[in-house]
């Protein structure tokens, strides 16, 4: 299952709900304002670092660059471009968008 999060972890519960439900072996893709969840040194960084043990976490590089934070991404998070986004959608059996 591919989980997509597009909301900031500081203004919505989307990332929290996603982390609660996502199974080991699944993938989380952070896009749009969701990419703020991929950054180091924040109030949610510890939670993401913990999840990285058995969940693949990806973030859309264009959204990181647009927001000026591409240099602050947590170690272990995979950066993808739009082609990578499409590949993730096709490689996974289902997609859940946590709007």
């Amino acid at each position, binding site marked *: 299952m591919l989980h997509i999060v597009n909301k900031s972890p*500081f203004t919505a519960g989307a990332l929290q709900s996603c982390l609660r439900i996502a199974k080991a072996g699944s993938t989380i893709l952070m896009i*749009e304002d969701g990419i703020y969840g991929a950054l180091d040194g*924040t109030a949610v960084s510890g939670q993401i670092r913990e999840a990285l043990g058995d969940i693949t976490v990806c973030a859309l590089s264009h959204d990181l660059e*647009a*927001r*000026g934070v591409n240099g602050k991404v947590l170690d272990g998070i995979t950066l993808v471009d739009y082609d990578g986004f499409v590949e993730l959608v096709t490689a996974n059996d289902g997609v859940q968008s946590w709007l």
Partner: protein
Amino acid sequence: MSEAGATKKFLYINRKAPYGTIYAWESLEVVLIGAAFEQDVSLLFMDDGVYQLVKEMQTKGIGMKNFTATYAALGDYEVNKIYIDKDALTERGLTLDDLQHLVWEDENEDWAEKDSIHLVGRDEIADLLDEQDVIFNF
């Protein structure tokens, strides 16, 4: 109330990240309109609003205009009271060095360049709200 009775204290509170929604850009448009009417304007960035001031944004990849370059022009419109919630920065792993360096030139001191940005805590934010005639929320 000033003598003329026409100048009011306007505070714009920005609490949303840029690009994900249109709020940040719309706020900036309204701020510039308010400044054109020579009101006493202050800006407060708190919660995800602090992300609006992060420097070196490259928006080509998302096909949107980087409107945040306009913040640097605010000083020319005499918008030079820009307050940032320091707790919001800390929660997001950011420091002042991650943000644009916004300045204005003080005509009463031979156009000396001064910082527009002031870091504030919750008590100062509460006082800031109390001082205003009008508060706009974005």
